[in-house]
């Protein structure tokens, strides 16, 4: 089978930008191409990811996204989520039809109304929407069940926010960065009980771009390729009531990625994880489902301190989604951060240990309805 490498990448900072969407997209896509020394019209295929959550008030976001991503008269399309775009791009290379794919993911959170307003549009119009179900209320249901079933405490959940917002202080691209204590988190405004404001991700700008190349082509663009060793996605039931919110499809998505990458013992074989945790407790739950600790022991994992930046198993050294939440791009940001760590070029937030294999995770939908997992290797 062909190999697929991440060769070059670029990301925007999460803070509000006065650039319009088109120029913003151009700036980041161009940065990647310049780094790779590749001309726009030499790219084999362009894959755009932009959100369908009423993205910037524009339907068919791909229409306006097209030019800035360099796709004029190039083979390409747009995917709904940045992880989907990355995976589809990898498949295009694996198919042997393309040697390079530029993946650009786009959103300007500052232009959109509240996250809750937009994620509310996931809901069906008859039942969940008139009841006001959105990503936050769904996550609040999930958090309470998590605490009830496994005795995970609010303090343990809050610790994730403390860790990640703290890590973000070292990440120049992060949107929210703060040194906070568990008490600060617990005393922050209640959003949707038991979720506190500091446990919920902001809405951020986020244009990120990655140039993928086939194994043979990769060395033209970089001396440090990061290989995509495995990927997997999986989908859960739509209706929250039809699911076990604590036992969703992440396990299945991860199994697919692990099988492809030949990973049997994730905790041992993976050196670092960038996890999509729009709500603090989800980092703990997702760690369990990814096989980093037994079920119900996410609380113990954070207590152990092992997931901190300079410890044995760093999780979200970038600050994660709590620090930076460009909705559709957030998965690709995890991939880029994981790739930076593997290359040893994450600057101030570079972890101490040698990172050979890293995991990047993305999720969208209510309470993790859809998960994507990507395994990267140096």
């Amino acid at each position, binding site marked *: 089978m062909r190999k697929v490498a991440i060769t070059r990448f670029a990301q925007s900072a999460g803070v509000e930008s006065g650039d319009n969407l088109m120029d913003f997209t151009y700036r980041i896509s161009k940065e990647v191409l310049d780094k790779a020394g590749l001309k726009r019209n030499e790219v084999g295929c362009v894959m755009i990811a932009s959100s369908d959550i009423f993205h910037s008030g524009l339907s068919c976001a791909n229409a306006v996204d097209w030019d800035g991503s360099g796709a*004029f008269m190039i083979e390409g399309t747009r*995917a709904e989520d940045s992880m989907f775009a990355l995976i589809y791009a990898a498949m295009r290379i694996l198919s042997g039809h393309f040697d390079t794919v530029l993946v650009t993911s786009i959103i300007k959170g500052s232009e959109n109304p509240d996250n809750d307003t937009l994620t509310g549009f996931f809901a069906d119009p008859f039942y969940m929407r008139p009841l006001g179900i959105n990503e936050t209320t769904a996550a609040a249901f999930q958090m309470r069940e998590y605490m009830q079933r496994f005795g995970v405490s609010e303090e343990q959940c809050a610790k994730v926010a403390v860790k990640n917002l703290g890590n973000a202080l070292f990440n120049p691209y992060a949107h929210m960065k703060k040194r906070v204590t568990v008490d600060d988190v617990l005393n922050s405004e209640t959003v949707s009980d038991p979720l506190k404001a500091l446990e919920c991700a902001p809405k951020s700008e986020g244009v990120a771009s990655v140039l993928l190349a086939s194994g043979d082509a990769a060395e033209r663009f970089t001396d440090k390729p990061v290989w995509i060793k495995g990927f997997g996605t999986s989908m859960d039931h739509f209706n929250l009531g039809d699911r076990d919110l604590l036992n969703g499809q992440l396990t299945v998505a991860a199994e697919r990625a692990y099988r492809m990458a030949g990973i049997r013992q994730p905790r041992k074989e993976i050196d670092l994880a960038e996890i999509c945790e729009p709500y603090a407790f989800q980092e703990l739950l997702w760690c369990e489902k990814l096989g980093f600790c037994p079920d119900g022991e996410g609380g113990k994992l954070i207590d152990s301190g092992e997931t901190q930046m300079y410890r044995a198993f760093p999780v979200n050294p970038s600050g994660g989604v709590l620090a930076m939440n460009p909705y559709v791009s957030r998965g690709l940001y995890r991939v880029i951060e994981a790739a930076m760590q593997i290359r040893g070029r994450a600057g101030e937030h570079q972890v101490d240990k040698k990172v050979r294999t890293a995991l990047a995770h993305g999720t969208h939908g209510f309470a993790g309805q859809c998960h994507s997992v990507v395994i990267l290797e140096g």
Partner: protein
Amino acid sequence: MGRAVAVIGTGQTRHGRRNDVSYPDLVREAVRMALEDAGITPKDIEGVVSGTMPSMMEGISDTHLYFAEALCEVGKPVLKVESCGSTGQSIAHCGFYWVASGMADLVLVVGMEKMFEGDGQATMSTVADPWFLKPFSAGAPGVFTMQAMEWMHRFNIPEDKAHEAAAFISVTHHDSALDNPYAHIKIKIGMDEAKNAPIITYPVRLLDVCPTSDGACAVILASEEMAKKIGRKPAWIRGLGFRGEEFFYGESNKSIWPSATEAAKHAYEQAGIRDPLKELDVAEIYNPFTYQEMIFYECFGFCPRGKAPDYVLEGKFNRTGELPCDPSGGVLCTNPIGASGLIRLAEATLQVTGKAGARQIEGAELALSHAMGGIDQFNGVTIVGAKL
């Protein structure tokens, strides 16, 4: 290069105004038919791709979440791909590369739209940016009319001739739709009626324009090995291409439409087609407007630039002509946008597998399917053949 990919099953809902079913139920209707056609069960599916014209048409975001069960997605790998009107082709391409990459042997591809649930033209005006284009939006007809006017001007096509040819296309397609059990608009019209229909946006008249439809279409793609194992007569994907132009309508030349021309060229190269008019047996062109269909004939190399009306009036693209185009009646008679591009592939598949019933083109072995999207911006083409 890559693995061979076959279309082994197709399913379409009855298209039209479908308020007898909720949206997920409509989707399931198409999926069930495709499963039945391929002779497989939901368990056999290894991946699901879906797409609509993006969310503002539905008023629901990320519909792959809402349709999880209807699409047989639960516990399965999924991808969602969208490219406006060309979504139907884009999702088919996604399914193609999924199978070609070796990551799955059986992929379900589903496109859907419930256009009656939203306001089509209002939604389409939101494709335009709010600074420059949206203020002057006259909906989709406005865009397509400007294109038709530019084309006629550029090639000195007399308006009368174009008008006559457009009416001819309308009449023949509406006739064809009568033979298509899934078609939405089923009316018998005459030339006078088509030519004198009320003007929507001059020169485009009511009978030159596609309807608003609810509908869904599902297609099942398989690897060579799996297709042989299942043993139904497949249609092999022989070539595919997708191209897009600049967002601002005025920046590229829509009378020669580079994206349509290049997308087809890319597909022809893979399929080894040099003279499409001779080599293709049938074409399912995305034709929301009769005038646009003529521009496509030229872009796809079916006739010289500026000559489409002549060819049309000679009957070259009739069901009995040299290259029958849209024997299903096309988008002109059935247009659930997110499904429309995939319906073209499904119809092309039915043709080359000899399953097109009353609308069958005798002996069809090589067929082109196509979709267009954005503000005249995107074009996708897939060519299927009876032989690998």
